[in-house]
């Protein structure tokens, strides 16, 4: 197990998003997700404050996935909302997704100004695999939001949430 992890870290690399590589993100989104994302989505993920949480994921130097978050501040709490996370089908079950979410969680835990309190996301209620994936990484189900998706069925979504350790000491 440790050896796999070690070799993964040498194969998986990340790149920050820039206007220049946004085309790759667009391409990935069109094949990974059943949703068309708006231009606002693409301008948000380029904001400097989310640089640590919006990444292109490379495997053996080929872009194979993406992970994007938004920073939300309300009532004195700073939360990360996981907008998208996906790996191209042929590259799944290699541990790339786990490795990537760990990197993001790590970045969230060490982030300051602001400190991050928690990270949450929506998962379509038909997507058990995804739910299990996040639960393995410490996310808990907080409830169901009916009619979350407007254009796809089923329209309900689980809300999954995970507290970020090391963020409450400040």
């Amino acid at each position, binding site marked *: 197990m440790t050896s796999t992890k070690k070799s993964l870290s040498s194969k998986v690399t990340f790149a920050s998003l820039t206007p220049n590589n946004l*085309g790759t993100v667009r391409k*990935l989104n069109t094949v990974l997700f059943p949703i*068309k994302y*708006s231009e606002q989505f693409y301008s948000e993920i380029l904001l400097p404050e989310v640089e640590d949480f919006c990444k292109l994921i490379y*495997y053996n130097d080929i872009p194979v996935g993406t992970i994007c978050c938004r920073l939300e501040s309300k009532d004195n709490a700073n939360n990360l909302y996981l907008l998208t996370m996906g790996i191209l089908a042929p590259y799944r079950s290699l541990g790339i997704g786990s490795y990537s979410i760990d990197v993001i969680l790590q970045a969230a835990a060490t982030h300051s100004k602001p400190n991050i309190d928690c990270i949450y996301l929506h998962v379509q209620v038909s997507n058990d695999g995804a739910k299990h994936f996040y639960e393995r990484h410490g996310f808990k189900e907080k409830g169901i939001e009916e009619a979350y998706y407007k254009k796809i069925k089923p329209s309900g979504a689980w809300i999954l949430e995970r507290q970020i350790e090391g963020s409450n000491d400040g």
Partner: protein
Amino acid sequence: MTPTPAKRALPSKESTLFRELLNLYETRQLKKGQKTADQILKKFPEHGETLCMKGLILTHMGKREEGLELVKKGVRLDLTSHIVWHVFGLIQKGEKNYEEALKSYTQALRFDKDNLNILRDAAHLQTQLRLHDGLVDTRFLLLKLRPNLRQNWIGLALAYHLNGNLTEANKVLEQYERSLKNVPDYDPEQSDLLLYHVRVLEERGDLPEALTLLDTNAKSRAIVDRVAVMETRARILSKQEPGTDAEQAWRALIERNPDNTSYYYGFFSSKNTDLGALTDADRPNTLHLLRELSLQNPRTLTPKRLELTVAPVGDFKPLVNMYLLQGLNKGIPSLFVDLKPLYHDNQKLAVVEELVEGYRQVLEEGRLPDEFPDAVAAISDSDVPTMYLWTLYFLAQHFSHTNRHSRALSLLSTAISHTPTLPELHTLRGRVLKRLGDPYGASAAVNEARLLDGQDRFLNTKSAKYKLRAGLVEEASDIFGLFTKKDAVSPGADLEEMQSLLYLTEEGDAHRRQGKLHHALKKYHAVRKVFEEFEDDQFDFHGYSLRKFTINIYLNLLSWEDQLWSHPAYIHSAVSASQIYVRLFDSPSLANDVLSTGLSAEEEKKAKKKARKAQQKQEELKKGKPFTVNRRSPLKHAVAAAAAAASNEDKGLELTPTKDEDPDGIKLLTSPEPLERAWKLLSPLLRLPINNIDLWISIYDVAVRRGKYLQAVRALSHAKALDADHPELHVRYLHFQKLYGSLPLPPPAPVGTVISNAMATLATDEMSSEAYNVQYLQRHSGNAGAVLGAAKALQILGGPRDEVEGILFGVLNPGVDLPLKTALDVWSFLKDTSSPRVNEFRLACDEKFNLSTVFKTPDELAVMYSQGPDTPINTRAEIDD
């Protein structure tokens, strides 16, 4: 000393002023200089030397015409003064008119034969013009006058060397080295000089002497360039006597840099084996030695790659298996390009195909190829997806290269749905579509690659080039513009300033395909300008390299310059422009047709808008900082360095770029002498050994129309030596025979005889042209190009149209191999001759080349690309909500 002529003598006051004037000029106090000159001229308005100096100053101040006028007047008034001739020479040199400048300098030297400045300048001009006899005399005189200057010794040695007199060059160098005292240790200048001396000895064939000189000075560390010492030593040893010493020398080099292929060639030459021309008897031993070298240098691929070339087919499979697996696992994008040369051997091609197809099948099932050699053991199962991807990429290239484009496309489609984010897949798809004759689909595919990585200049340039190939000139310009200087007048202007040959030739070709011949000519002439600059650029190095003692590299530069015009981009431009000029000559109304149909109302509006924008930009530039070039092409950079370092006082005399009087090339198109323009483009190529048959055909076409029959027939001989059966040559041969036979009077004796003799060697038999043509067609009936040639020839011979067309349609016969390009050539021939069967041919081709779009009508294309030229039906439009 001859007495000063009365009209030159000045009273003491003016004489002092004149000396002051010279001083002021030297120190570039131009305004004061002008005033001083005026002071003298007030009293002595006919004083030639003062007039010249004033003219020189005015030229420096940008008043070239007025200045030149004064200089010419000054020269006329005092024909025996060295000053007036020197000034005149300076001005001509500034205009890059080297021949005339040298004449003026020679005049100046008649009246002041020991003037160092004039002699030095004359030497530079003689080098530029490659007048080596004169150069030796000038350098000799310079050394005699100033033997204590080191560069004068080197200058003379170089002059002898360039003039082919290595013995004298060697003597000069020996004498110089004997006279040296107190050379500092590790002096790089002395080091390069000694290496140069070794080179002279080596070229002269004095190998033992060369080796002794090299070894002595390498040991004493007088030669500091270790790699140069090792390489020179190995090379001389190999020449001297292949054997152990030479072998050791090459081994040492391989150890130092195992990636340098030429070291391996050297190593084997020391064993009397030529890696470039192996005999079967050599193979086993060569293979054995390569393996040994590979084991000694496990990190390099070079010997392994050489093994693949050397190995007989029987040993090939396990070797290439290992090489392929390693490359595919590492994901080396250039693997196919690396291996492609092996495909000359059909059996090796088949082995590669079988192996990689095998990998694909196994990888598709999610497993690694079975027989994984030990050396590639680092591979794990987790590498399957990327290795599969690179395998698909390799195979797609393989199938496209071997003309199985549909198979390539289907592999690419699998690969793109597997991993849509690898730009290489999209560019390759573009290339395959291009080869299939779908320039629009190709352009869309490459653009898709570009969108994946906006900061990749390679993808940017490729995408713009493919747009040009698809005729989307404006869009291409926008794409280029993403990477060009923002304050340039236009992206194209910046790329021209950067001397981008790719841009100039591709855009010229795009205009030409669209019939905008004036724009095309403009670009082709811009290419010529770039090469003229390349040629002029060497001038500053004649002085600079001597002073800096960079002799060896300078000699390489000179021989590069001698071959300069044979660059493929220049040949292409010269040939393309000549073809246009020949058409313009043959049908004088063409120019007007181009101009009247070229600019539709809408286009005119667009062009006006563009011009306005450009002008605005120009004005903004003027208002802002003065025009500065902050980015330069690398060559320009080096040249600028040489120019700046040159303490050459003649800067500022050069022609400043003037406003382009003919931005759209309309003057080029309507020039009354198209053939003279064409000849000017072709003439630098006449004396170079160029293996491009299109060039010699073009030279024929222009020469024969200028009535230069000897040149024409010589061009045909050149072409024949390259490819005796070439269809275009066949056409020209019959063309010439007909034309020559119909001359009212054959050319007079010497020329006429030469031509007749040459004709006799070109013709194979004494028979009628018609019969000759029939015979040619029969000999090559399976070759579409030859069929086209025979039809063209029949047309020239006055054959009836239906017969010509009958031959032409033969290209569609099942037994004929018809490449897409030839089909296009046949089509345009039919169009040019206003054939009633044009459409019939087009439809047949559209069916035959079913994946191409080039045979579609504009209406059909419009339907196919109804969403605009950039979104063909087979790519999804990405629309965000």
